[in-house]
Each structure stands twice: as C-alpha cells, then as structure tokens.
C-alpha cells in the first residue's frame, strides 16, 4: 500500500511543481468597448461592424458601430476589427474539474457509488485549479455545466464560469438540475473486444420499476409538508416537481427516450431534457409534441448501424432542428472537449445555418440549462462572458482566440500547453543554427 501511495505521489509531483493554471483575472475596473468586430450574437444575428460595451461585468450594449454615435470617454477601447466576437461557448454535461487523469483513480470525482444519489452535488467537488480548464478556454469555451454521472440518478449539476478562485466564485447557476441515466433496454453480451449480439437487458424492467418507485416516493415526500424525518435523497428531488430544477435524462435508443420521458412526466417532472439521444431522430415527433429539448452527444462519432448514412451523426442536429426541436451540443470526452466549437462547425457543414449552429453551443444551451437570462448571447444586460477570435471560431482552421472575458474580466489565456510550447520553442530558437 505504501508503495502504491509513494508511486502515485512521485508521478503527481511534476504535475504540481510545474505550470499552474493561471490566476483568475481581477474584477473589471473600467468599462470596455470592443470596437468594429464581427459580432455573432448567439441569437442568430450578426453585426458586421459592432460595438460591444461592457460595464461592471455586464454587457452594457451591443450596437452596429457603423451608424451609432458612441460616447466612449472613460472606456478602454479595444479594436477587434476583422475579428469575430462570440458569446462564451457553453460545455454542458461535462466532468471538467471533476476528473483529471483517466488512468489515475485518485483524480476522479465524477461518479458516486449506488443507484440513487440525487443529493450528491458536483459543484462542491469542482476543482477550479484543474489544468484542463485553461485549455478549453483558448477555444472559446467559457462556461460549463459540471455534471455527475453513474448510477440511475447521479446527482445534481451546476453551471459555472471558467475563471474562478474556487467553486463558490465560479457559480452561474447552482444545482440547475438532476441527472438520470435511463437504463438500457438492450444489453451487450460478450465483452468489449469480442462483443456478442446485443440482447434485451433482463434487468430493464426491474431498473425501470426502481426508478418509478423512487420517483413515486419523491412525489409523495414533496407533497407531504414538513416530513418527520428528513430524507436527503428525496429532499433533493423536490425541485423537479415545482420546476425549479431540470431533469436531464441520458437515453440513446428510441424506445428508451420515449420511456424515459413518459416516466418522468407520469410523476410530474416539469422540465425534462433528453441527453445523448443518438436515436432521437426516430422519435422526433414525440420530442416535438412534448416540447423536450435535446443535448445531442458527440457529433464526431461513428454511425450506430452499418447501414446508417455515413454522415448521420454529423447531420443529426440539422434533422432535429428541422423537426422543431431545441438542440444543444455536448462533448462527452474530457480529453477532447475543447473541440466542442467544431461540433457546431460540423452541424453547420451538414445542414444547419451557421448562426443557428452557433446557437447550439450558446443560447440554445443556455436556454436548456435555464441560464438564458444571464448568459448565452451578446445582449444588453447579460453577463459579459464573451471572446474574440481572429477567424471563424467554429472551424479549427480559423479558430484563434485572441481575448476572452468573463464578467468583463479579461482572462489570462495561457495554459500548460502554451507554456510548454513557449519553453521548447525558446529552447530551439536559442540553439545555434536556428
């Protein structure tokens, strides 16, 4: 045991001794005017020559600079001419800050043991000093919904802004909703390297019954006035029935999606979001009729079935959007989650109009998470969470974040990656013959 600890400690050392995540930026002192950039408002509109005024951490105004007469005395005026301005991208359903190194168990804090853990809260485990956070910001991701996973009901997520000294400072919305993993109807046989045919999950009925029983108890508990004995789990469920919390349900096969939503509705859950939803296409009418928004998982995945259109995952957002469903995009793989903007780019390449695709990582997501009153667009009164890119931020070829703001605070955009890059670039440049 000692040996193991020692080993882990040794491996951990370089992590700690090297580049730290940069310090959070100080509070905004002076109003800022971002002038002449191409503003993508995140609501579908673009202002080709914009003026974006930021004061006291909020967006004071967004106007067309071509005609507006602006009094900018006292403003820090920053020209972003030719550059693109976007609302900060939102990464929903992420374990950012809850997990550092997949292979090292001690760095993993994203899944609690047991089937029903609605009382578990991701926010308090969210590590603002994670080395990963600075690396997603440089692609334009400035907000995240930090969510637990595992079990049938995993716990509650919170929405955070990605520049903070600690989790309390990071909050955009505390405990925005609870997470449920709808059991699979199908169960894979064999093992992963030699998968057998997929069978019906024999435990499905039981797991579904467990969920129903739990929801039933939660409803009863919520209606019973002050309980004699506090039940932490059921207490945590209350917000689902009065609409103050959302229920995010991960489900993939078509029937699972329907069963999940119908079950939640049966027990009076008000705000339901379907997550992952690889087969959402086949129940699009159901989702539309029930006004269920969808957080679509990894666009950069293989089609589920050999006969699927080869580009089916790429065009899924377009197909759902066409059906009238509110779509947000998520990236369920921490190591690559900084590539979320390129999911939107892919959606745009496969049928979604570009500004609509942008909404899928900004305003749609904000709306789905219930923070659209504060964030998600470049609009007057919202929190000044935004960034500037030298080119189209949805395309890796041109995404190049030159500055970013959270509540008007101009972020230090360095990261371990940039520091290591500089370190070795300098090494080689200093070598003779370079």
């Amino acid at each position, binding site marked *: 045991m000692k040996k193991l600890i020692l080993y882990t400690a040794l491996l951990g050392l370089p992590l700690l001794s090297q580049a730290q995540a940069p310090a959070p930026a100080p509070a905004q002192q002076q109003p800022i005017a971002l002038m002449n950039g191409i503003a993508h408002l995140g609501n579908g509109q673009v202002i080709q020559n914009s003026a974006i005024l930021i004061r006291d951490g909020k967006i004071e105004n967004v106007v067309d600079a071509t005609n507006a007469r602006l009094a900018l005395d006292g403003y820090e005026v920053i020209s972003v001419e030719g550059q693109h301005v976007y609302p900060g991208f939102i990464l929903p359903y992420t374990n950012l800050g809850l997990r550092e190194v997949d292979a090292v168990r001690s760095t993993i804090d994203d899944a609690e043991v047991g089937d029903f853990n609605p009382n578990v809260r991701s926010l308090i485990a969210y590590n603002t000093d994670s080395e990963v956070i600075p690396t997603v910001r440089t692609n334009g991701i400035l907000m995240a919904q930090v969510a637990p996973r595992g079990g049938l009901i995993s716990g509650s997520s919170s929405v955070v802004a990605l520049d903070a000294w600690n989790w309390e400072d990071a909050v955009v919305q505390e405990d925005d909703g609870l997470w449920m993993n709808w059991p699979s109807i199908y169960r894979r046989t064999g093992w992963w390297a030699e998968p057998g045919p*997929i069978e019906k999950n024999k435990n499905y009925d039981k797991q579904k019954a467990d969920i129903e029983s739990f929801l039933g108890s939660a409803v009863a508990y919520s209606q019973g006035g002050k309980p004699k004995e506090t039940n932490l789990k059921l207490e945590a469920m209350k917000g689902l029935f009065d609409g103050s919390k959302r229920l995010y349900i991960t489900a993939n096969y078509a029937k699972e999606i329907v069963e999940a939503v119908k079950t939640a509705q049966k027990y009076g859950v008000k705000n339901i979001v379907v997550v992952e939803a690889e087969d959402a296409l086949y129940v699009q009418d159901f989702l539309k009729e029930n006004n269920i928004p969808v957080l679509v998982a990894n666009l950069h995945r293989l089609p589920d079935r050999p006969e699927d259109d080869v580009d089916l995952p790429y065009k899924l957002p377009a197909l759902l959007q066409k059906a009238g469903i509110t779509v947000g995009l998520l990236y369920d793989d921490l190591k690559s989650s900084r590539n979320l903007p390129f999911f939107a780019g892919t959606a745009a390449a496969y049928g979604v109009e570009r500004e609509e695709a942008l909404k899928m990582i900004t305003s749609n997501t904000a709306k789905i998470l219930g923070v659209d009153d504060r964030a998600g667009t470049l609009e007057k009164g919202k929190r000044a969470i935004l960034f500037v890119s030298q080119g189209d931020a949805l395309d890796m070829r041109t995404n190049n974040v030159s500055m970013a703001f959270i509540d008007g605070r101009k972020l230090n955009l360095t990261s371990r990656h940039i520091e290591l890059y500089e370190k070795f670039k300098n090494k*080689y440049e200093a070598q003779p013959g370079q």
Partner: protein
Amino acid sequence: MKRILLPLLAAAALLLQPALAQENFPVNGVSDNRPQRYAFTHATVVQDYQTRIEDATLLIENGKVVAVGKNVTIPPGTTVHDLKGRWIYPGLVELDASYGLPPVEEKPRASRADGPQMETNTPGAYAWNEAIKAEYSAVSDFNAKDSEAKALRDLGFSTVLTHRHDGIARGTGALVTLADDKSHNVIINPRASAHLSFDKGSSRQDYPGSLMGAIALLRQIYLDSRWYTSQQEKPFVDRSLTAFNEQQRLPQIFEVKDMLSVLRADKIGDEFGQQYIIRGAGDEYQRLDAIKATGARLIIPLNFQPAYDVSDPLDEMNVSLADMKHWEMAPYNPMLLQQKGIEFALTTDGLKEKKDFWTNLRKAVKYGLDKQTAIKALTHTPAQLLGAGNKVGALRGGMLANFIITSGDVLEDDATIYENWIGGKRYELKAMPAQELAGMYRLDLGGNTYNIEISGPADKVKFRLMESDTTGHDMNALVGENLINLTFSPAPKDTSRTQLVRLSGWWDGRNWKGLGRNEQGQEMPFTLSYTGPAKERKQADKKPAAALPKPGEIPQPFLAYGQVKPLEAKRYLIKGATVWTNEAEGIMQNADVLVEDGKIRQIGTNLSAAGAEVIDGAGKHLTSGIIDEHSHIAIQGGVNEASQSVTAEVRIGDVINSEDINIYRQLAGGVTAAQLLHGSANPIGGQSGLIKLRWGKAPEEMKIQGADGYIKFALGENVKQANWGPHYTERFPQTRMGVEQVMVDAFTRAKAYEQAWKDYNGLSRRAKANATAPRKDLELEALLQILNGERFITSHSYVQSEINMLMKVAEDFGFTINTFTHILEGYKVADKMAKHGVGASTFADWWLYKMEVQEAIPYNAALMHNQGVVTAINSDDAEMARRLNQEAAKTVKYGGMTEEDAWKMVTLNPAKLLHLDGSMGSIKAGKDADLVLWNDNPLAIYAKPLKTMIDGVIYYDLERDEQMRRELQQERARLILKMQEEKKNGGDTKPVAVKQQKVWHCEDLSGLNHVHHSEHEAH
C-alpha cells in the same frame, strides 16, 4: 460385364469377411453366429451419387455389400425384403462430429484477478503451448455409445469422423460407424484425419490472445516439428511435435468460423505444402471467387437462421442488412458453391436442432442445389476426402453394408427414411408399411371409371380423384396392410351433389377390391388397379411458387454499401480545380489533372483527352488521398497479441477484414491508404498490414503490393501494464528500465540467431549433412529483418526519456527507427529525432487520459516539423480517421503551420514515413491516381469529399452514395416484407439482436477468448 463380375465380387467379399463377433473375445454361453445374408429386391438403388438402378436388388452378407444390380442371383438361405417402390441410398457420412468422445472440459475463463497464464498447464512432455494438442488421438478416447449414435443414425448417417474440437492443433480423428456395437467393431479407421483450427479452445494460456497470434503459432509449429523431426538425437522430447509431424500425411481438416478465415487457412496450407479440407461456416457464397481460388474442398453446415421478428420497426432497425441478407442467402450457399464448381461435403454440425437437417437440406435443394450434388456431398465426397471411398459412400461389392431405405426420393419433402442399415444391421427409424402405393390407379365402380392418384410415402399416402392430368380433388382414405376404406364425392364441383361414394375393400396381392356404395347407397363391387407411375404428372404439378426462388444480390463486401458490380478504373479528366499538388507547384488554381490506367498522367491547364470522362472541378479542391499512418480498422480477431513482451512473429496482414464498414466510412472522409498496426500492449508487437481502401476487394487484394515491411514497437505505460490493474505485475517489463532491456535482449538474440545460421550455411557440404540446421524462428526472423534494414519500426511512444532510449538502442545496433507514433513528447527531443532521422506520426490534440500524456501539447506537430522531423497526423481511431483533414487543420491553429505544410501531414508525410511517396502522397505525373475531390478547402471543417479515387477507381462518390442509401432502404424493405411473410406462413422467427461493430484501438488487448483489458479505453 456386371454379371460376370458379380460372382467374383461376391466371392471376394466372402473371403474378406471378418468374424462378426470379435473372435478373440470369450463367449459366455454357446456360439450364436446367425446367417447374416439379406437381399433387398425391386428397389430403386442409388448405388452411388451418379448411378441409380431401378428395380434392382441389393445383396448383403455379414455386414458387407455382396452385389447390387438388376440381375443379382439370390443364393438360397437369404432373407429377402421386397422393396418395391422404395429407394436405397448409401449410408450418409458425417465429417464433423465428436461422437463417442468425452466432452471438452470447459475451464472457467480467466478473470483479471487471475493474472496471466504464461505457460501451458498440460502436464507431461507436450508442446509449450496449451493450444497445441497434436498428440491427442480420438481413437484413444473413443467409446461407442448408442445413445449418442442414435441422434445421427436417425437422420440416416452410418459413418462419422469423430474428433475432439479443442485447440489449434487438435490431433487425429477416427472414422467410425454408428452401429450399436463394441468400440472395437465400429472403428473403420483409427487415424483417419488430422484437425486444425484458429481457436485455442480450452487453453487459458495467454498466448495466443488473437487470431493473428493463433496463425503465427501454427506457422511456428510447422517449422518446429520439421526441425525437431530432422534431428537424429533430439535435444529434448516433445510428443506434440512428434505427433504433429506424423500427422502430415493424413487428410488435414481445418475448422474456421467465417469465410475470410477459409482464405486464411488455405494460405497457411500453401506455405507448408498442405491442401486443407476446410470446415466452413455456411457463408462462403459471400466470397465465392476467392474461395474457389483456394482449390480447397469444403465441409459445409446447413445452419440456416430463422427470420428476424421485424414487426416492431424500432427494434427491426437494429438488425443489420448483412444479417438480413444472410438469412435470405444462406440456403443458396450449397447451390452457389456447386455452381462455382467447388466440391463440398455437408455436415449436420452447426445445426441448433439436428432434426432440422433434412428440412434444411431439402430447402437447399429447392433453392437450386442439384439433388445429385446433395447426395454426393453426403456420401461420395466425405468418403473420398478421407480416402474411405472403398468402404463407404457407395454400394458396391466389398463395401460396408451401410444404407438407408426410404419411401422414395429422399430429397422430396414428404419422403420418409424407414430404416438405416449399418454394417448389415438394421435400425428401424419408422415402421415400414408393407408396400408403397404411390402411382396412378383406375377405379371401376358399377360401370363408372375414375382416375385416382396415390402419392406420398406409404406411411402418409394421399388419394386424389383426378379431373385431368394435373388437377384433382382430395379423397378420404384409410389404408392398412390388408384393408382399405375410401370415401369421396364423385362430382366434387357440383355442390348440389353432397352424397358421398363409400368403399371398403381388401388387398388381393395385385389390386384393391371390395364392396362399395354409390351416392344413392346402392351396393356395388369395385376394383382399384394400378395403371402406372405418377411421376410424369408430378413435374407439371409444381406450383409456380415452388419454382426456384431467385437469390438476392451478393454485394462485396457483404454489408451495407457493398458493391454488387465491381468498380472499374476509368480515364478521367478533372478540369478547373484548385489542385493541392504537394509538389513544387504548390496549390495550383484552375488546373486540370488527367488520370489514366490508374495513374496520374498529366497535370496542367486546358488539358484535353479524347474519350476521358470529364469531372468538373470548378470551385472544388483536388488533393491526393489521405494516408492514415496509424489505423486499426479492417482487422479481425484482435489488434493486440498482448500475451508476450515480444510477438514480432504475428502479422496484421494475416487478419485483414475486408468486410469492415469503416473502410467505406473512411473513403467518405477521403482516406485512401492506411497502415494497419498491431496494438501497443507489448514492447515488440506485430507486423503491420499496409492497405489501400479498395472497398469490395478481398483482403489480399487490399494489400499494397511491394510495400516495405513494418512492425509495431511500443514503450511506456501500456507495455509495462501500468493501467491493467493490480493483477498484471508479472510480465517483464514492469518499468521503462525493463523495456529497454527487452529491446536490447531481442536484438541480441536476433544477432546470435543470424550468426548461428551463418555458421551453419558456412559449413562444407559434408559437415552440413551431419549438422542440424538451426531452428527457424519467425520472431527472430522478423527482428533480424529490422537489423538488416528490411523491416521498419513504428514505435508507440510518449515521454522523452523513452524516445531517446529507443533511438540509442537502435544506434547501438546500427539501424534507424523509422517512425515514432503518438510521440506526444516528441517536441521535447525534436532536435535529437531529426538527428537520428526518425519521423513522427502524432495526434493533433490528444492528452490527459493517463500520466504519460500529461505534458502532451497540441503544438507538438508544429514543433517537430520545425526541427526538420517528417511529421504526420494519424488517427488510431476509426472515427477520427474520417476527419483527418480537420486534424491536420489543427496544426494551423496550434503552431502556425502553413496550410500547404498542414495538408502534407496527412498525405505526403505519412507516405514518406511508409516509404510510399514514390507512388503516393502527392499529385504528380506517374503516381497512383489516389485522389480526393473536395467541395471546399480540405482543411476547412465545411469540406466534404465529393469523390474518393484509388488507382483510378472511384470508390466513393457522394452522389452514388445517396443513390445507394435509397437502394439500401428498398433492399431492407424487400427483406422485411419477406420476413413478415415467413412469419405469417408459420416460419420461425427470432428476436432482434443489435449488430455491434468492434472498433479497435491500439490498446485493445485481446481478440480471442480472453478477458484482460483496460478499464478505460485509453490510447
């Protein structure tokens, strides 16, 4: 001729007669050897699959055939069976059984907690590998067991080849009959065959953990057994090697699980001068041409699947098109093999229910299998394959009296097998009515005559009152051995006449006769007399529905987006495109490219080429095809032979899977070539397979001819099993220190090996004759190739220390590492890499998933490139490979590469790393026409391939893809309808199972029946 021979044969048969009871056994009581001579007369005898004799006699005595023919003299004292109307066939021969053998002990699967099993658990002086059980001899274990024999006997089989289905080299099989007798008496040939497979069976030894490992092991066993045998004085005793060598002259039967493995097995046979008989899986129709080319004779199951229950569309969508089509096509497999001229035997093995055998066989006949071929596949072929054609498989004098008696043509639906005679002993399967009645009859009743047809075997006859030659009405009949009762309406069409004619009579030896009452109840005599056979009419009676159903189309590969017709190379002129040449010309605007004979012929402006198909390139971008330096698609049976630290002997090229949908998906992403790499679970992995994504071609045709040989090495956490959990702490190495020593040791051994051969080859002819050649070792051969610059290393690597280490090891042994792959800390030692001359193939932006990637940065590619390292961006991922253009674009973002240089990272640079830049990687006259036409700048996320061409063949075309999607829908709809009809007609259905496709990554540890794996699918 026959008549002259017959007495001679009969005499010969008598002379050869063995005693009926084993004569060395003491008898309890008085001797009781009864006369055992039988004659079967007036039967239709199928003497062999191509000779049918009507009204013939079969004479047998003491378990052997004496004579067959029309004019056989029946000696006095013979029991005679009149089989008028009945048929006799030679007894059927089953080549795939484990009859009489104890069941293979199912050892529990090793679990992670068990740790590795490095050595064999077989006690004794046997092979080092537990899957090599060549020493096993079925006859030593064989115990005749009537309860087991009965199952096959009831189907009409009398002879089976029994062997133990366990291991890669399975030892010998015994040819035995299914008679209810002592083991001593039923064994026809105690050593009839040798058996092989790719399945390690009950062995829980780690090696081999993959299909390619099984193949490598088998190869080495051939070499080892030859080497071992060649020595006068053995250096040690290995009874498996001795046995393996001794088996080489026996018929070799190789069991495989799918049609690609038929090709694989045959290839190994070719290497070692063996033509295997291959026990296939029933899917051979999917690659008929390639299978025909093997020249192998096959043993084929009739394991047709029930239709899927497709009534629920949300479930039905989870059935793959390939599975649906296989349901439809499997019954055509025997017919298609026959049509192709591939000889095969049929087996009952693989049937879920043995009783389905005849149903399925008759189905195959309905689906076009020639009856003669069907009988041949159950008699002649299996007998011949075992060299037992003089004993079984036909009915000729001196052969075993193994035959079945049937009601008629046994391949007709209503046929009954009454008796199965084995070695002259009778086994009744179904009581045989006194006689067959089928035929045309005339009923005379009170001055009226009626034509009556009797059909079906005697135990289930059908009477019909005939209106014409072809139409008639059913009659009610009760027939016993002596009595008959018949009722019918004499004018069945006239509904006003409801009264029935009723007859009751008896058999007078020739006809039925008796007393009847007509419709009015009047009493009158009747006779029912035979007028002739009914067979002429039978043909015409066939309903149109019973006509040969048309087989579906067979796309290649056999799955969605497969090609029904092979795609062909054409002359193409691509006009007015933005051409990314990757050459000095850079990116040419408005340029033309001419493609001819699979090559790029010319690049320029305003080209014209009469007869060439013109492709409009205006507003589009033309590039050379993407080359993925690190891929694991199109691999079957595991990507890692993770069991040993050094597995240089395994070859990805042995296990290429042409039926992988990801080939097509990657064509749709502009990929034209890939290095299929062994995984990274051990320091020295296996040899690579370099392929072009020639969708539809067989595995061998996908390989790049003349490409250099490559091999995978790996360093760091994977090879030291750092993330395999607490139980994997045994295999050396467990540290980076040990990894170096594995490398040094391997090359040191290879050098010693080389020296040993040099010494041997340098001996005088005389000395050589007295010396033993060194053992040929495929692992060391591969390592030696590296030392001699004939094979090139792609090494998985992460941190700078290990990168530097491997370069130093190579330098000490005088060679250069070709490529570091992953190489995520390459940026820290890029200057040293440039100096060593090694290239890099890396991810654009992966990091984080384990400790050794904590300092991985997305600027890595740019930093290495800037130091002069030839740098490529690879996928190691079936999904990412279809977006490698985007991954290349990230080097523009991270590190400021120019777009031209970024693009080379997925085209020219990987071509250089794979030594393919002479023919690929750029758009240059004379190079292969491996081209992609894009709708946009290929580095843009908005770019899509419109066409992907390899060797001048357009393998992917966006418009054709859309057309194929529609056709796919139609094909599914057609099959779904067909399945629904099957269900409606009472056919079996099975619930839907989802086809999950395995996508390999380089850390996937195992492909065979083994369990250890890393919990996180890290890379």
